[in-house]
């Protein structure tokens, strides 16, 4: 641990093309990009399916499939295909694929689990389908949807780390380089950075959740 601390406090390890700064920037870049793409694809679809009450089997099973497929295998398949020459494309594609299941499932389940009585009351007040969705279903589904966003973000940060095992960028490269050099201090230092990043992302999203998502008043 003291060796890892020494590695982390060595200024030279933080700068340059393969320094912590550059690797962190890569990691954040691919993660944010992938989360935005996955959100743009999965959230509208999941919310819409939930509103219609259709496609439940698809929305729920996609999560089971996502769990069974190894991230490392998908990244490796991309890297032995022509995609390997396409810069960040293989990493971002893999991240998007693994971010979609939690987003889609939670968006669907969130809307589906909204109290049917509230939906019927809104209909009875003369709200249209769109109004019911915007004013009733969406606010009530928000906490579950945000849980999906958090799972997806954690998944994305973890997947971006594994990208280093197939030679792609990101903070995981500090770990894999450490393994290649038999440098335990560097491996641990890289792992601490990755773990901290994951925990910070989780923390920020929990804080955002508290700030943005309306909570029913306590009774």
């Amino acid at each position, binding site marked *: *641990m003291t060796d890892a601390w020494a590695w982390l406090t060595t200024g030279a390890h933080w700068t340059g093309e393969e320094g912590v700064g550059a690797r962190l920037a890569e990691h954040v870049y691919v993660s944010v990009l992938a989360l935005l793409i996955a959100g743009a694809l999965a959230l509208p679809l999941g919310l819409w399916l939930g509103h219609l009450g259709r496609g439940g089997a698809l929305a729920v099973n996609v999560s089971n499939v996502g*769990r069974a497929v190894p991230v490392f295998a998908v990244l490796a398949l991309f890297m032995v295909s022509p995609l390997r020459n396409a810069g960040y494309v293989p990493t971002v594609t893999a991240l998007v694929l693994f971010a979609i299941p939690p987003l889609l499932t939670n968006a669907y389940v969130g809307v589906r689990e909204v109290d049917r009585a509230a939906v019927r009351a809104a209909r009875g007040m003369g709200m249209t389908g769109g109004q019911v969705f915007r004013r009733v279903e969406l606010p009530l589904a928000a906490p579950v949807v945000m849980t999906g966003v958090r799972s997806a973000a954690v998944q994305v940060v973890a997947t971006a780390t594994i990208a280093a095992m197939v030679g792609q960028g990101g903070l995981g490269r500090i770990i894999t380089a450490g393994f290649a050099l038999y440098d335990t201090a560097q491996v641990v230092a890289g792992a601490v950075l990755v773990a901290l990043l994951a925990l910070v992302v989780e923390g920020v999203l929990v804080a955002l959740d508290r700030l943005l998502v309306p909570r029913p008043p306590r009774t």
Partner: protein
Amino acid sequence: MSAPNCLVGNDWICGEYLRTRREELTDALVQHIGLTAASVAIALLVAVPLALLVRARPRLAAPVLGLTTLLYTVPSLAMFSLLLPVLGLSSALVVTGLVLYALTILVRNTLAGLEAVPAETREAARGLGFGPWRLLWQVELPLALPVLMAGVRMATVTTIALTTVGSVVGRGGLGNLIEDALPTFFKAQVLAASVLCVLLAVVADLLLLGVQRLLTPWSRAQGAPGGG
């Protein structure tokens, strides 16, 4: 497709590869199954007592669930790496990391399963003179089994996928084959190992579902045939 020169041509699907490397594939599969089985078994042995402890002492619920969730947030590659100074390049390192992930799922599901036992059932058993252990063994655990087994299935499928990351220390079962194939872009090996890995997850899931049906014959009698 399966012409003898598919190895030279680096085809995605190559019968020749499957024939000539059968032993290598079998060894990797056996290692994969061993790592997964050990991890899930140990996780279960830790998770059930932990869940019982949390239920007996509700004050422990927040710290225990918080800690396991915190561990679940740490990416797998980082988890294995953090264990390196303690456990070295060993199977123990991979199993320990996998146990820590499986714990989160299993503790949650064990607790949820126990909480789903109807209070009246518990009262009835107590009224019949059941002591706390007999209540647990003969009433609560059997009734918690469906939710508990759902957790075991989820933990097993997750663990099978995560085991591949163990290839970073050379103990990743089928992941080792994927890692070895990368420098030469050996497509047939990457594809075969990946497909085997997913198949293993599907087969394990179905086997555990079968075990669950055997252990809970009453739920079959109640539910619609073929349902669930």
